[in-house]
Structure formats: C-alpha cells, structure tokens
C-alpha cells in the first residue's frame, strides 16, 4: 500500500464506512466521490437566514434515492433527490468541479469534485432521478474510491495551503521590515510615519489572505490569520525597543519587585497596594521564572494578552448564533480596534481577560431567561427580548456547575486585583440579569458582596484617604468628559491628529455597531445580550473620571460586543458570494488597519525609551540613598522599576507657574521646593531624558515651561549639581547645602 493510498484510507476510510452503514437494504450506489463542502444548511438554526454546517472534506455517494455526504465522524448530509430545487455544475480552480445546489433552506456548495462527477451529480439532482449514471456500484458493504476521485481535490487543497502560507510569509516580511526602524525615526504621529513600504505590503498581504479565507469559508485558516495579526500588530514594538517601552510598565515592575523582596503588603504606600492581586502574582511569576524583574515579561505581554482574549471572545460571538463567519470576523475586528493600549503589563490587561471569561461562560451556558424573574422595565422591550432562543452548548454531566465555579473564581480574582474592572463586570452582569439575558442572579450578588468586603476590609486605607474626592467626582459627567476628551486634544499638530483620529475611530465604530444591532433586530436574530454588553460600560463615567481615562476604559469594556455587532453588519453587507464577501472584508480591514496604526502607536515617540536613557535613570537608583527624592518633568521616563517604596518619586505636572511664567532662576527655586516640599532634608535628584523632551514636543510644554528651559535653569543654579550628562539623559543632584548656603 502506497503512502498516498494510506493517506486516502486514513482521511476517507471512516466516511466511506459511515456511508456503507447508512445505506438502506437494496439501495444502489451509483457514484462515489470526494469533495469539500463549503456551505450547508442542515445543521444551522432555522431562525437564521444564513445558516451553515461545518465546511470540510467529505465523501459523497449518489444512490438511486438520495445524495449522502459523510465526514470522518459520520453521516451529516442526506438529500433526497427530489428535495433539490436547482443544481448546477461549474468549473472550479485548475479544472476541478463545483456543485451548487439550491435547497429550500438555502444554498449548498461542494467544491474540489472531479469535473465529470460534478456534472453527473448536477444532472441527477436537477432531474430528481439518477438518470443514466455511469456506474452502478451495487449495494456493497465496503466502498472504495475510484482512482480519479481525488483529482479535483488537489487544486482546492493547494489553494488552501497557499492561503495558509501567505500568513507566516507576511509575518516574516513585517518583522524584517520593523528591524530597520530606529526609535529616533518615530515622530509625532507615532509608528506609522516610520513604517517602511515592505511593512505596509505585509499588512496588505495579511488583509488579502484573511479576506480570501473568509470568502472561501476557510474559517480555521481565517482564525490562523487572526493569530498572526495579533502577533504582528501587538508585537510591532518588539523589534524596535531598546529596552521595555511605556513608563507604567516600569512602575508595575517596581511594585512587583517590592512585593517579591518584602513579601508583605503595605496599603499606605499607594493605591496599588490596596489591590495587590496582580502584583503578587507577578512577583510569584518573576521568582518562578528566575528573572531579575518583571520587565522580562513586558515585551510580548500585549501579544499574549490579546491571544488569550480570543477564546472567550469567540464564545461571546458564538453565543448569539447564526453565521459561522461571525466568530473569525469578530475576532479580526476586535484585534484591529483594540487600540486603547490597555494590554501592557498591567492588572487591567490580565483582568480584562477574566472579564471576558466570565461573560463568555454566562452567555454560553447561562444565557436566556428560563429561570429569570419577570423584568420590571419596558414590557414591549421585554416581549422583543424574550423571543430570542437560548444559547446552546454541550457540557458533560455536572459540567454546568463546574463552569459556573470557574466563572465565579475568575470574577472573584478580579476583585483584589483591579479598582475598575469589578465594577464594570458588576454593571454588565446586573444589566444582563435585569434584561433577562441570564438567569444567574446570584453571580452579581456574590460579586457585589465581594467588592464591598474588599473595600471595607482590605482597601480601607485607600478608601479613607480618598473618600471625599471619590464622593465629589460621583455623577460629575461633564467634568469627567472634559478631563477624558476635551483636555486631550492638544499638543503638536501630529499629536492633535492622533487624538482626533482616536475620537473619530471610536465614534465610527460605535455608530457601525448601532447599525449592526438595528440590522440584527430587524432580522429577528439574537441581539440583546450584545446590546447589553456594549451599552452597560457607558454607565462607568457616572461613577468617576478614573484619572482622565474612563472613556478609554468604556471603549475597552464595550469593544467585544461592538466588534461582534460591526462584524454582523459587515456580514450582512458581504452576503455569501465570495467576491463580494471578500471585497467587503478587505475594504473594512483597510479602514480599521489604517486607523489602528495611527491610534494605537500614535504616542510611541514618548513610550519608546533608548538604552542610554534607561541606563542614566538606572544609575540614579544605584547611587541614591534611602529616602532620596527623584524628580522628573513628567512621568514619561523609565523609572520606578526599583526601590519603589524606598525612594520618593515626584513630577512637575502639578507645579503652578505665575501668570508671566517662571524665569530660569525662579524655575530652579520652584523645583528645589518640590524636592524639599516636606522639609525632609533628603537627597534630591532631578532627571530629564530624551522621552521627557519628546513628551514636551508631543503634548505641548507644561505651564511651568519646557524641559529644555528646565535644563538651562538647573545648569545655571548653584543649588543643583550636574552629575550625569548624556545625550539621552541628564541628572542633577540638589546641592547638599541648598537653602543653607
């Protein structure tokens, strides 16, 4: 037996046996062939206009009564000859045959058939009788494929392989192109201005490959493209970085290092130590991996997080049923729209993943209202919602209790780890319960109790110190929007462009999602759970501005459902014809991709640090005595990664300037006051770096002046001694006899 024969037997042996078992007594097999089913109607939901069965390789048998099709796991297709309304054979790729059938439920397409077999099948099915079929194979107990059966499949499989190979090829080109980009080339509009042409070509290839895969119903291949896209887009800075990027990553590393060294939580240090779950786990991981600090995890963290978001996101998209293309397209749109940059080494990144897991479990296994209480709001709304069918998913015996426990564990793990995500999850769960999209009333109740208990017992230090501020911010929507939106539009022309692009991208995505929801509702499809997921996070700005970031977080928490609704709209526009479907997906991707490159990496100039500036900052940590005060013009520098609680970190963002601004001597005196603010008499260091200068250029100079002016003022002041001067970083030490001389 040749290898080819063995392979054929391995792939098609079980389906052939299944067909043989399925034959009725006396039923004669007239034609036996193989092909690839693209689109089917037999396993879908009758409510959906477009329903699909799993595409894949199948063996087909034309008998004197019906057409049978089987996959490896049994017979899945059985068409009486009289059930076919229309049948047509046409030429496919490289001479292969394509069979298109019109059925009462929709269309069924089989490709990769031998050309002659496709015509025979079309003729038999169009006539409703087998007619003059070429061969009568009788009623055998064991079926064997004839030699020409596989002739049509080879071109189809080759096309699949080519589509698949395009993805890694594009990835190689992408990273090879990025290798040549230097930090200094990244300007005010971020990474997009520094991308070489070959990088754009790689992205176009990825776009084309995904559109092709989706248009040809290769959903597995489409998911491979999503994975490759995540690696490409979220790993884009890895080849460019000289050291870990983004200042907050460095700060989070410092907190984890503190916990790893000290081993206990001091809630009075700052807010992070009131929600230490993530940092304790990160400290554990750092020790387990044997690395010096958590920066070792930072470079690929966004890639890892976005990959881990995909499974729960797929479950959420699938929970509303319908077109199977919805899952890969939702993932694709999510990846192209997650520009808010909350996936760096942070509690938000990890616990957004848990947020998705909880919602995936709730919507997949506990969706619907069969055990829910009657809603108190909007009877007409209720009637519309209640008509949706419940989620369908198979679980073994006892499985529902087990997955519920997993969801509960994930929800409870968020509580001690992040300030905002538990409230967001609670808001969504309460909304789902209120609108009868889940009957799990106990889950939000348990979560609420856990949040309250944590605030009262573990985070009391933060709460007691900030309760007045939190109370004052509650309900201040106008102020919140001003700090989140209005105050961010400014700085250089390039930066203003980036901010406006972000506002436009968010607005267009939300409008498209709204249109998608309206379309789904008009079509009678399951929609309301997605609407709840998309809308509930918009309640968060009522609570507080979250340091001017709440709108970004709303965008993030609403994005999964928004992506699914936009995908739904795109599929409605795309239809089922490959050319149109591929064109729509290609055009949508180009728009999202162009937007992503600007919105995601628009601030890369200040978050990318050079090796030299990192080493300058590191040197201060080497020499500073315990209790020393480190001052920087802004927070945009690689610091706080060591000796987190031992040294004090201050920036000049709150420094108030007189109406005419500071003179250089006055500025130096003002900085000295920041160093000596509490009269501690400790050593003081002022640090400026390439990134703090870039921050000035990007966001506009601060009220107290520019970094260049600050450097001149410190150089001229006898109260500061320059101790390190490099191109990318400078350090001054406050003179020991300052104020005393």
């Amino acid at each position, binding site marked *: 037996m040749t290898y080819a024969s063995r392979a054929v037997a391995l792939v098609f042996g079980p389906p052939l046996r299944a067909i043989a078992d399925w034959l009725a007594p006396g039923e004669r097999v007239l034609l036996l062939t193989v092909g690839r089913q693209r689109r089917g109607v037999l396993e879908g939901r009758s409510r959906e206009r477009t329903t699909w069965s799993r595409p894949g390789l199948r063996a087909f048998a034309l008998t004197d009564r019906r057409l049978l099709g089987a996959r490896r796991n049994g017979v899945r297709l059985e068409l009486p000859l009289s059930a076919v309304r229309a049948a047509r054979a046409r030429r496919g790729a490289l001479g292969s045959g394509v069979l298109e059938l019109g059925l009462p439920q929709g269309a069924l397409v089989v490709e990769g058939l031998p050309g002659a077999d496709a015509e025979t099948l079309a003729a038999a099915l169009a006539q409703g009788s087998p007619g003059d079929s070429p061969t009568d194979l009788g009623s055998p107990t064991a079926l064997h494929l004839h030699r020409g059966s596989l002739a049509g499949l080879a071109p189809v499989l080759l096309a699949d392989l080519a589509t698949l190979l395009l993805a890694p090829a594009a990835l190689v080109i992408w990273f090879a192109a990025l290798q040549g980009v230097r930090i200094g080339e990244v300007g005010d509009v971020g990474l997009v201005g520094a991308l070489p042409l070959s990088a754009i070509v790689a992205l176009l290839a990825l776009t084309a490959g995904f559109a092709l895969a989706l248009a040809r119903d290769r959903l597995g291949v489409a998911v491979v493209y999503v994975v490759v896209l995540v690696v490409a887009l979220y790993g884009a800075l890895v080849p460019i970085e000289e050291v870990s990027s983004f200042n907050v990553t460095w700060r989070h590393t410092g907190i984890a290092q503190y916990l790893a060294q000290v081993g206990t939580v001091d809630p009075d240090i700052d807010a992070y130590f009131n929600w230490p779950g993530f940092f304790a786990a990160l400290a554990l991981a750092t020790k387990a991996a044997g690395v010096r600090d958590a920066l070792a995890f930072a470079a690929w963290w966004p890639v890892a997080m976005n990959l881990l978001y995909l499974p729960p996101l797929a479950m959420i998209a699938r929970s509303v049923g319908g077109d199977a293309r919805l899952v890969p397209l939702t993932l694709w749109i999510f990846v192209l729209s997650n520009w808010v940059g909350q996936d760096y080494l942070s509690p938000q990144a990890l616990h957004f993943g848990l947020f998705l897991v909880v919602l995936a479990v709730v919507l997949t296994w506990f969706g619907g209202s069969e055990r829910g209480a009657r809603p108190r709001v909007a009877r007409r709304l209720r009637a519309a919602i209640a008509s949706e069918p419940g989620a369908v998913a*198979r679980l073994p015996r006892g499985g529902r209790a087990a997955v519920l426990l*997993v969801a509960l564990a994930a929800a409870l793990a968020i509580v001690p780890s992040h300030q905002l995500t538990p409230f967001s999850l609670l808001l969504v769960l309460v909304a789902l319960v209120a609108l009868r999209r889940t009957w799990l009333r106990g889950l939000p109740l348990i979560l609420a109790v856990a949040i309250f208990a944590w605030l009262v017992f573990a985070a009391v230090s933060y709460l007691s110190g900030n309760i007045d501020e939190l109370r004052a911010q509650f309900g201040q929507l106008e102020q919140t929007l001003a700090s989140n939106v209005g105050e961010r539009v400014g700085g250089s022309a390039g930066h203003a462009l980036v901010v406006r692009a972000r506002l436009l991208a968010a607005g267009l995505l939300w409008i498209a999602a709204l249109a998608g929801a309206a379309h789904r509702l008009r079509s009678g499809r399951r929609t309301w759970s997605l609407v709840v997921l998309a809308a509930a996070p918009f309640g968060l700005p009522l609570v507080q501005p979250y340091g001017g970031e709440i709108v970004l977080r709303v965008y993030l928490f609403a994005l999964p459902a928004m992506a699914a609704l936009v995908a739904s709209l795109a599929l409605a526009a795309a239809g089922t014809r490959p050319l149109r479907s591929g064109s729509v997906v290609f055009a949508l991707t180009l728009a999202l991709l162009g937007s992503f490159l600007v919105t995601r990496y628009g601030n890369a100039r200040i978050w990318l640090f050079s090796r030299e500036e990192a080493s300058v900052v590191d040197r201060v940590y080497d020499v500073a005595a315990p209790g020393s005060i480190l001052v920087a013009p802004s927070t945009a520098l690689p610091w706080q990664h060591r000796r987190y609680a031992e040294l004090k970190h201050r920036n000049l963002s709150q420094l108030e300037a007189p109406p005419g601004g500071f003179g250089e001597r006055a500025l130096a005196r003002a900085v000295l006051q920041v160093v000596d603010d509490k009269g501690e008499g400790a050593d003081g260091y002022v640090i400026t770096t390439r990134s703090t200068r870039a921050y000035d250029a990007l966001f506009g100079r601060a009220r107290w002046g520019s970094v260049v002016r600050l450097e001149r003022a410190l150089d001229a002041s006898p109260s500061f001694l320059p101790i390190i001067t490099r191109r990318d970083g400078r350090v001054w030490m406050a003179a020991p006899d300052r104020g005393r001389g």
Partner: protein
Amino acid sequence: MRLANAWPGPVLLGVALAVAVTALLDEPSTGRTLLVSVFLLLGPGLAVVGLLELEDPWALLALAFGLSVALDTAVALVLVYITGWSPGAGLAVLVVGSAGGALAQTFRASRAGGAG
C-alpha cells in the same frame, strides 16, 4: 478515546515537570521565562478544566485561562497576606496541583481508550 480529550493531560504533565525541573536548576533563560509564563497562564486551570472533557477548544482555552489566573492570584495573595512570602512554595503548590490534575486526565483518557 477522542484525540481532543487525550492531549491536555500528558502535555500539561510534561510542562509541569519541566517547570519544576527548571525551578530546581534555577538557571535563568528565555526558554524558562516562556515556559513559566505559559504554565502560569494556562496550566493550573487546564488541570481542572481538562477533566470536564470539553469538545470545544475555545471553551477549553477560555476556562483554563480564567481559572489559572484565579488560582495564581489566590496562591500569591495567600502568600502575601497569610502564610508569609515563599514563592518557591507557591510555585510548588501550583505545579503539584497541575500535575495531579494532569495525571487524573491521563488516567481517565487511557481508561476510556481501553474501554473503547
């Protein structure tokens, strides 16, 4: 025995053992960082969720991720709040628990294979 249900047990067992060995040798390397990251993000959860014999890979991965992070966080918080900081002990708990779950899955899969 379905292939989909057969792989998590042996693979997880191998990963858990590799994490234990690298922790004992205590030599930093990129491979160790990658191994520990994958283990902590998926391993402890997979040890439990694998016993559910889910056919759906999306659900398997989602639940494994969610439960892993929950268990990692729980162990780390116990270390900082209750028992005293001992990352070696924390890792040992996660590795032994994962190996136990992996063994149970392997045993169950082999029994199902024998029966089938």
